[in-house]
Every structure is written in structure tokens, then in C-alpha cells.
């Protein structure tokens, strides 16, 4: 259990019960002690059915649900993912994230200490990203009907004037850039999954990317054609999707792709391809050829993207296909996987 910067208040309950979700006294106890005090701001204090916001200009709107198991993993917990995930989605739209909604579905029997730790992580992630939670909801389900805790966050952000993000902007000759070492999050999760555990220093890469993204957009503007965060399905899936949408081809070079040595070792052992392993703090950029080198150098100056690298080029050859040159110079086609990658013996 981490050293909490916000100590848990004294409560007369230590597990979540069905009563906590039913709207009565217990719900209030939970919310007041838990959510409202911890995340307090003018909107939440209203404790109204909804938040009234004054928005002007192009607005980005994104939602994501988080159901990960285990809820605590090296480098973070589901609370970090819930905030960073939606904040990053907004950043990928070229927006500055501002407001979040926060909904919980809690399983009866969830320990208050665990819930509190997740709330504290949410608070800290919001502060780091400069976003406020303005509305939310809490429900409790019977034991066995939920995986300890599910979280949904929905976010709103103001789109930057200099941003013009769209798959339709992709052009032949554009460079494909990955912001940091890949596959770290997925392997961090594997390292604590029952039956697969191994020792390593690998921690999840979950982090807020909106800072480095907004600065990049400010500097490079319309030369940044597309941004996508490479979460479930990994870098390969995101690129394959964009290749199909744009009907252009992509040529990648495996030797350019940054991967942590320990992550690579874990992938070898489990028979996983790092290109398909989930990330939480890595994004793919497709930018015009002219600024590609400068863009990578700029990303490299920021903590969130130290290992940024150009990994490929957009091409008119082989439309809708992503082709990767292997370490030995051979070529292979990256396709969509039918489902989640599973460790193999073969």
C-alpha cells in the first residue's frame, strides 16, 4: 500500500456494501467522506444532478471505461488509468482537457482502503493533468457481479486553434513516430497476473500526455496530421486502423522501434509480439516529412517522450497494408489480431 498523501478519514465501515449505492445515508457517507472532500471543487460542491459549464469554441468530447484486473499493478492503479486514459484521448483530438465526469460501479465487498487509494490516485492524476471532476455517479453491485471496481470517465476539452488532427490529413511521405518505448504497460500487467508472474523493474507507463502534446501542437501546428494513443492492441493495431482508414500503405522498420530490454525479455519468454501489447502512455504521431526530425527532437526533450523515434513512412505502395522490415531485413505484413494476444508455448 502506497504512502498516501491524503490519509483516509475515519469511517465506521471498512468495506463497500449494497447500501452504499442505494442513495441513502450510507451513500452520502461514502461520497462525502470519499469523493466530494477529496476532489472538492465548486462544481462538485453543488452536488447537483449535473454540472453547468461555460464552453466556447470547438470542444472535444471523449469517454472511456476501465475494467482492468488487477486493479493495482506496478506503476499505478485503475484510478490513474481512468484519468490519464480520457485526458490522453482528448489530447489526441488536439484539445486541452478541462473537465471530467467520474462514474464508479463498485462490487460489494471492495475494501475501503483500496477504494480510498484509488480515489487518491485519481485526485493526483487530475492535478497533474490540470483537469477537474465536475460530476459523477456511484453504484454498488452484488458480490460476483463486478470485478471489484469499474470506472468510466468522460472528458471535455477545448480544441486548440493550431490543431488540425484527422486521418484524412495523412499524406504519402509522412513520417510515423512513436513517442516512447512500447509494450511497457501490458508487460507490467502480465508481470503480476496469476500464473504468469515474473520479477522485473517494469512499471506501467500510464501518464498524462496532454502537456507534451499541446506544446507540440503549439510549435508544429498543422504539420502534425494525426495523433493516436496506442492503448489496447498496441502500436500495430493503431497503425493498421489508420492505414485502412486512409487507404495508404505504411512501411515500418522493426530496428527503429524503441523497446525496453526487460520488456523485450518478457515478450520473448511469453511469446508475445511487443507491437501488439497495450500501452497507456505512448502515442503515435503521423507528421509531415519536413518537420519529422525536429518533432522527434522536441518530444525527446520532455520526460513523457524521451525515447521518441521515427519508425516508418507512409507510402502509396501496398495501400491499406502495414509492412514491417524485420531485424534481419525480411518483410512481414502486420494484420489485425482476432483478439487479445495470449502467451503461447508454441
Amino acid at each position, binding site marked *: 500500500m502506497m504512502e498516501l498523501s491524503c490519509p483516509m478519514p475515519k469511517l465506521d465501515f471498512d468495506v463497500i456494501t449494497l447500501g452504499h449505492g442505494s442513495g441513502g445515508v450510507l451513500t452520502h457517507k461514502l461520497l462525502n467522506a470519499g469523493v466530494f472532500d477529496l476532489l472538492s471543487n465548486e462544481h462538485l460542491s453543488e452536488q447537483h444532478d449535473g454540472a453547468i459549464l461555460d464552453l466556447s469554441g470547438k470542444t472535444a468530447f471523449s469517454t472511456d471505461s476501465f475494467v482492468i484486473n488487477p486493479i493495482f499493478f506496478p506503476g499505478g492503479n485503475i484510478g490513474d488509468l481512468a484519468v490519464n486514459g480520457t485526458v490522453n484521448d482528448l489530447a489526441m483530438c488536439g484539445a486541452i482537457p478541462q473537465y471530467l465526469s467520474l462514474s464508479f460501479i463498485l462490487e460489494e465487498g471492495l475494501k475501503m482502503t483500496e477504494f480510498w487509494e484509488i480515489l487518491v490516485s485519481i485526485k493526483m492524476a487530475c492535478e497533474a493533468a490540470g483537469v477537474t471532476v465536475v460530476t459523477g455517479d456511484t453504484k454498488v453491485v452484488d458480490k460476483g457481479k463486478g470485478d471489484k471496481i469499474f470506472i468510466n470517465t468522460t472528458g471535455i476539452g477545448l480544441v486548440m486553434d493550431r490543431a488540425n488532427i484527422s486521418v484524412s490529413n495523412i499524406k504519402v511521405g509522412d513520417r510515423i513516430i512513436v513517442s516512447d518505448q512500447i509494450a511497457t504497460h501490458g508487460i507490467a500487467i502480465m508481470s503480476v497476473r496469476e500464473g*504468469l508472474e515474473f520479477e522485473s523493474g517494469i512499471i506501467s507507463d500510464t501518464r498524462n500526455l496532454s502537456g507534451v502534446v499541446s506544446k507540440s501542437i503549439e510549435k508544429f501546428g498543422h504539420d502534425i496530421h494525426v495523433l493516436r494513443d496506442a492503448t489496447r492492441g498496441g502500436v500495430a493495431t493503431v497503425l493498421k486502423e489508420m492505414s485502412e482508414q486512409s487507404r495508404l500503405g505504411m512501411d515500418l522498420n522493426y530496428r527503429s522501434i524503441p523497446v525496453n530490454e526487460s520488456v523485450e525479455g518478457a515478450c520473448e519468454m511469453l511469446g508475445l509480439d511487443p507491437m501488439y501489447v497495450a500501452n497507456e502512455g505512448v502515442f503515435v504521431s503521423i507528421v509531415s516529412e519536413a518537420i519529422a526530425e525536429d518533432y522527434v527532437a522536441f518530444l525527446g526533450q520532455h520526460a513523457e517522450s524521451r525515447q521518441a523515434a521515427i519508425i516508418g513512412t507512409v507510402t502509396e505502395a501496398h495501400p491499406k*497494408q502495414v509492412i514491417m522490415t524485420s531485424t534481419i531485413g525480411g518483410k512481414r505484413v502486420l*494484420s489485425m*489480431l482476432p483478439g487479445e494476444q*495470449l*502467451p503461447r*508455448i508454441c
Partner: protein
Amino acid sequence: MKYLSEYRDPELVSKYLGEIKRTVSRPWTIMEVCGGQTHSLVKNGILDLLPSEITMVHGPGCPVCVTPLNLIDKAVYLAEEKNVILCSFGDMLRVPGSEKSLLEAKANGADIRILYSPLEAVKIAQEHPDREVVFFAVGFETTAPANALSVLHASRANLDNYSILASHVLVPPAISALISDPQCVVQGFLAAGHVCTIMGLEEYYPLVEKYNVPIVVTGFEPVDLLQGILMTVQQLEAGKAKLENQYSRVVSAEGNPNAKQTIYEVFDTTDRMWRGLQVIPQSGYAVKKSLSKFDANVKFDVNIEEAPEHADCISGDIMKGLKKPFECSQFGKKCKPANPLGAPMVSSEGACAAYYHYSGEAELAEA
């Protein structure tokens, strides 16, 4: 990574490719037996780099692919009806049985757990003395010692609640069944390196003598595969037929005697049905009668009939090298990794799945 990265050196790969090109003077058809070798050839893009005179046929060396449907059905049944904790290697989960896959059963609430090692399943049995734990023991000879060891561990720990559902297959009888078919066009074999790490070389001499084919025990990294192919081609060009060992850094002539002893302590050899081929005599392992309390087949007395293969599946022809995956009428259409109609599409080591994922043929088929 030591003993891995060196065998992926592009310069050395290039030199081997050059030497293969210089050596080859006419077409040759070579089979790499093991699915892991297929995976490596396709993933590294080696197939396109080889001179066109060489045709690689992808062998039946994928224990996941050749596991008969009724064994998967048994595993699903045990998980769903008998409420066991069903433990399995990851790649078995997506294989559909005649009704559903283990992954679908898991989604329906069955307690199915992915493990890296069968030894973990024994730990789970120790931690849950009130539940039955069954390990879906799939694999070639490489995996047999580990699966056998799990039974020995359970026995030493006096566990009553652990058993394995064995689906073991043996390589030499399969090669024999393929070569002995007069239609088989394969002229040389890259034998499965890790299988030979356990079993050694002795089972292959009779095959070389009887069928007069070169067999080279080969590893899995690009340099290993190319050296194995070069050694095979050198023999073929010289009209030779010998057993050679490319993978000598881990394969010795006698194999691993401790591993073999462990296998024979737990398993008897038995006839086995190979999905996509046929019943091959003495080509599988079954748990010995004296250890039947650890044999899930006996313990749970599940009788599920073997289900017939899909009528359109031409896996037999593919595994004998008579046809390529994209020559199948269903390839990329009804038959895809998400919905495999037959054995070679089932896991990414199967010939059809390897083609589907890496060569882009499927996209052409769908177009």
C-alpha cells in the same frame, strides 16, 4: 539477449542467404517440422528472402493445431459441468471445439486460468484443496517432461485434487506418416530443435535410412533456420541423405536423459488422433495406469465422441506440401484465425494462420 540476439545478426543472415543461393542449382522442397520454426520464418520475412528454387512446406508441428476437437470439448465440459479449475497454456484458449472454445467458456463464467507453466497448476491445487484442478497438458515431447513433472510434484505433495488432460503428440511418427505417403513431395526435413533437445537424435536415423531423406535438427532463430536449410540443400545437391545436428548448442545425441526418464515415469506411448491428418499409431502419450488418479480422462470419465472435420478443410494436403493455404477455397473467406475451420488455421504457428497473418494473402483473398 545472449544466445538469442547473435542468431539474429543481419550480416550473418545475409552471408548464409548468399551461400544458399550459390549452392542451389535446382528446385528443392523442404519441410520445417515445427510450428515455432514456421512462425520464425514468416515473422522474420525469411520465406521471401530464400531463392525461389527452395519451397518451404510447413509441417504439422503445432500441438495446439493438431489437438482433436473432442479433447477441447472435454476440457470445456470439465470447466463448465464439473466446476473444475481448468488451467491451460494461453494458445489453447482460442481454439474452437465443436461448440465453443475455452475462451468462450471462460466468458460464460467457467473458472479457466492461463498459466505459463504446469507447475503453477500444482500450486493452485495446493492452494485450493476443496476444488479439483485439471491442467490441459498439450504439447510435443518438449513439453512432456514439464507436464510429467507436474504429476510427480502433485504425487510427492500427496494431492488428491490434481490431474492432467493429456493431449501429447510425438514428432517422429508424424514425419514417418507424412514421408511414407507416396504423394508427399517433401525432399528434406528440418527436425524440431527443442523436441530433439529432450529426445536426442536416435529416432531419426531409421527415418533417414528407410526413406533416404536428409534430416537436419534445426533451431529457431533466423541464423539457425538458414544454417539448417543450407545444410539440407548441401546434402540434396550432393545426393546425400544423413542426419545432421545444426542445433548442437542445446541438442546432444542422447537428448536429455533426465527428461526422458521423467516422461517414462508418468506416460505410456499410445495411438493418437492428429487433427487434420489421421490416427497415427504410437504417436501420443497417455498417463500410466498406475498414476490414473492424476489422469483427468480416467478421473472424470468423460466420453465425448470425436467430431468430424469440416468438409472443405484441405489441411492434410497442406501438411503434405501438396497445396498451399491460399489454394484452399475457404482461405480468408469462411476460414480465418477468428473462425478456423481446420487445424492449420488454429494458432499462429499453423501454416494457414501464418500465411494469413504475415503474408497479406488473406487481404488479397478478401478483395
